């Protein structure tokens, strides 16, 4: 599956996108966020505060219990800030 990162999550993770094999124990978004934190380093830092992380699966906003599968494009980003005019 493809993982993509935006804003400060991209900066902390140290990359904008990557291809990874779906980890065996990961069934939903919550599992995937736990897995990200266990990777340590910049990933642990990026995913330390889950209250400020939003997730989209295949370009749709999802909640923590949304299932993930091989082939998905999963995006991690902070709450959007729009144009603020």
């Amino acid at each position, binding site marked *: 599956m493809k993982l*993509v990162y935006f804003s400060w999550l991209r900066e902390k993770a140290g990359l904008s996108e990557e291809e990874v094999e779906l980890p065996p124990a990961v069934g939903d978004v919550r599992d995937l966020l736990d897995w990200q934190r266990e990777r340590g380093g910049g990933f642990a830092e990026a995913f330390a505060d889950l209250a400020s992380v939003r997730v989209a699966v295949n*370009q749709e906003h999802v909640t923590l219990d949304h299932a993930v599968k091989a082939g998905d494009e999963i995006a991690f*980003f902070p709450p*959007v*800030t*729009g144009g*603020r*005019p």
Partner: protein
Amino acid sequence: MIRVQEDDFDVGAELARLSDGNSAVGGICAFVGLVRDMADDQQISAMTLEHYPAMTEKELTGIEAEARQRWPLEDALIIHRHGRLEPGDRIVLVATASAHREAAFEACHFLIDWLKTRAPFWKKEEKASGSEWVEARASDDDAAARWNETGSAGKAAG
């Protein structure tokens, strides 16, 4: 129609195109968002907008479709810029064309409120103290939430 682009846009030309050849249009309402030079009492020298292209396109298309469903619009246009912008630069254009002004005003207001809360853009501001990412604001959520009621803003408020 929606467009996400790095380049500036010509407001006059865009508005003219919106009603070109369609004499059912009785009015066009436009909102042009500009980059301000102040944020939280601090001077901004520039800001950079990052976005998620595949998702931005999907969401803006969805927002435009919703506006067209809720109001009798002849046409609608959303242009949002990304990349590095400086104070005074145009950042967004929302324009709605309808037979009558009420639909054009309301749909335009609805679209800009939603753009601010839903569109996947993230902004990094450059200040004297350094660069920092802008955090989401509750006041913007409130502005968009008033459209959750069915009907117009006036009905929602009443």
